[in-house]
């Protein structure tokens, strides 16, 4: 009981079905050092780690919510906000940079109306600039989920967007 607003009030409470999160926790409950696999499993199930799931993990693994939050913010692999159905990664490493990667990213920003590490309101796309995708011979390079697009051009950006706009959300 304190004057400070309770943690729950500060968050916009998300309506989340925690069944899958509970299943993930059940799977790893007795494993020593289970926090990472549990969080990874939850992210796999939901595409990100929802706040109510963090509270659930804290309760069931008897861990402090603050420490879980520390782990989640330490690793780049975890996301605290819903992510797009399609993750667009554009390489801005040295080779791609000299091949004009900046124009590719600018075009994506312009077409999708989002910036780096942002997600479109319809949850279709998340855009990320990355340092290197390890295929410098194909520079400039872009990826959408697991599909790779080499020798990117501004025209290709529109083609990619058209292709993935036509794909179903599920």
């Amino acid at each position: 009981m304190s004057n400070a607003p309770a943690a729950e009030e500060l968050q916009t409470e998300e309506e989340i079905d925690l069944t899958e999160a509970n299943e993930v926790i059940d799977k790893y409950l007795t494993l020593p050092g289970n926090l990472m696999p549990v969080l990874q499993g939850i992210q796999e199930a939901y595409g990100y780690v929802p706040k109510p799931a963090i509270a659930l993990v804290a309760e069931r693994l008897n861990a402090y919510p603050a420490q879980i939050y520390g782990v989640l913010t330490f690793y780049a692999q975890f996301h605290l906000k819903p992510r797009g159905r399609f993750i667009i990664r554009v390489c801005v490493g040295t080779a791609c940079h000299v091949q004009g990667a900046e124009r590719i990213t600018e075009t994506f920003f312009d077409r999708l109306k989002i910036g780096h590490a942002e997600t479109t309101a319809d949850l279709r796309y998340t855009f990320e600039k990355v340092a290197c995708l390890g295929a410098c011979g194909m520079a400039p390079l872009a990826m959408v989920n697991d599909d790779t697009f080499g020798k990117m051009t501004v025209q290709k950006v529109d083609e990619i967007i058209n292709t993935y706009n036509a794909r179903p959300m599920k």
Partner: protein
Amino acid sequence: MVNLTVDNKQVTVPKDATIYDAAKSAGIKIPILCHDKKLHPFGGCRMCLVEVEQMKGRLIPACTTPVTEGMIVRTSNDEIVKARKLVLELLLLKHPIDCPVCDAAGDCDLQNLTYEYKVNCNQFVDEKFNHEIDYVNPIIERDMNRCILCGKCARICDEIVSYGAYSVINRGLEAKIGTEFDGPLNCEFCGSCVSVCPVGALISRPFKFQARWWALSKTKTVCSYCGTGCQLTLGCKDNKVLTTVYDEDQGFHNGQLCHRGRFAYQFVNSDKRLTTPLIRKNGKLVESSWDEALALVTERLTQAKAAPASLAALSTAHLTNEELFLFEKLFRGTLGTDNIDHSAGFAHAALTEGLKASFGTVASPSEILDIQKSNLLLVIKTDAYETHPVIGFEINLGVKRKGVDLRIVSDKRGKLGKLPGAQTTVHTPGSELLLLNALAKVIIDAGLADAAAPGLSELKAALAEVSLEKAAAATGVSADEIAKLAKDYAAAEKALILLPIGLGYPGHNAALAEACANLAILTGKYGKEGTGLLVMGEKNNSQGAADLGIHPKASGLNGSAIIDACISGQVKTLFVAGENPVVSYPNRAKVEKALEAVDFLVVADLFLTETAQLADVVLPAVSFAEKSGTFTSVGRKLQQVKQAVKPVGLAKSDFEILNTLNAALGGQKYLNQSELFAEIAANVPAYAGLSQAALGDEGKLLPVAPSAKLVPVAAQAAAPVAGKLALVTGSALYHSGTMSRFGEGPMLVCPNAYAELSAADAKVLKIEDGDAITVKSDTGSVSVTAKVGYRLPQGVVFAPYHFGEGSINAVTDGKAVTWVTVGK
């Protein structure tokens, strides 16, 4: 032991010591920022770099490197100084260097080291942090711009407090100490993080801009809230207590304090303090002189002396031993009445009756340090953490560092139950005795009892009728769980039982202490390190009050009986020293009626309490900070209380008040309280041979010689009343007794009376957290705020008792469980 050389000095230290420890033992100071002797070594700040002859080529962190035989260590040379300077430059690069407005200035490790290493310029340039400052919570201001990321706050909150409010969040340059979701802090507000913060990143809001650190005069004394007996240092200026100062070398707890110890000192200089005596004239309390007030009290007490049975006196266990001894001398000796008591007659009966019957002494046969030395802790009531938070820290440390097996027997769940491996046995309210008897029965039946235990045959006979199945049905705990708990307790090499007592626990009486003692005696688990029974008295001097006999000894009335006798007209004159029965004794309406019924009521207190408002004469007394003497804590530690400030207004200590009255009524007049201590030492066996001067800063552990005897305990379950909820009372974490209401911290975080409901009951009753609700029993009703939580079983309501407004004693009647209805 390991031998090594530190700065050409030969040092011998235990093999688990670090280079830092070795240097410290030789009186050599190695600078540190992230290291704390209470916490696991961290090695984060690199200030403690030293050179080791055998590991040349790089500098070695002293705080994490264990010593080895023949090690040759140099703690300072040009290279080391250069490295430390670099560390400081890098820390200062992002630090705002706002020392003129920083409360930590003067007490800041970063500032002091910067000065010591003469870092007057920085070879690097960078932008400063721009973190938002957390002003949301009322107690702890968090300015992460000043933070040097030593992580001590996060580590102490995890390792010792076991709350885990902080963690390092984000990564690299973005890394900072944050809370869950980087929101404002909302925790127990014990302030442990503030105390260990080496800079001004975490500061106490109540103390902000009150005084520079170097302007404070510092007095080492003992906390006056609960019975733990934490030593603390008061920081005073201009005759006012302005803060508590952290001293990591104080007490068994290494300077650790709880919320009320650290943030509830403001009652000392509260503007609500009484500054002059008051006398009731024409129905109103009006200011008077000491001469007039004391003359009136003397006159009425002289009349009462003729009929001692019509005189009664109640004292608080907040007074010093010297004052309690004088209280006893005045009323039992000079005035000849045995109607003297403290804490209603039930709150301390575990000591004065329970332990007296079981161990032949009014003191626990164990001490606080036994907690970490035990193998298994059996905590009766999870409230041990709420009533005695710093003992709670000891339990945390025992479980987490020493692998102590923690078992809790309680009517609700609590924080202790979240410790690793802790098992909570939740029983139906009021069935503790049944459960404890069942445990004793299992131990006897399984042949685990010590055949030589005194009184075994009587106990066997008394428990003959106890059946595990019946006990399981009545307590709501399965027979298997009871049997397992009993066998685990008996099997543990060293097991210690903890029993918190106090005014909040009307069911925590003599029988409960006897039932606990039976388990210890049956299995021979007492009188040895890490074993026994620790009865945790509620007040700072509950143990002293028991030792000095502030309870009826012959045919006198105890606290509850005194209240009844006031109503019946037997008691006509009542003297109350510091006690506030209107709020703390069961059945408020009855207490008020009693106090209104007595012909003459004298109240000596710091404040015009609910009780003092009914008095004929009110005498302004002083707080622990304004007087000297001794307190005896849980586990029999006798410690010195030292005066830090002058009394407020015309207030006088209870020693002065009682001394004047005693002399005027024909008793002995004492020169000072030290003279009384000498008399205590001469008359009370446990205090024999002691002197105040010999106590020093550390205090002395009083001896105890238990002579054990099994005492059969009759147990009955509280019969449920259909359609009603079981109300159990107790303590809130932020409060202690009724005095913490006058401290700033507790009233900022927990200002109102509340009742805690289970989520299931709340749903049925359509009550939400924060709703105004009415709790009603056969005794009365009270309006409080609802708190909905997950720690209570369905059908149980919990309410703390500290509050004057919405005081839960309006509905309680002194039984362990009160059957109530709750509605909006």
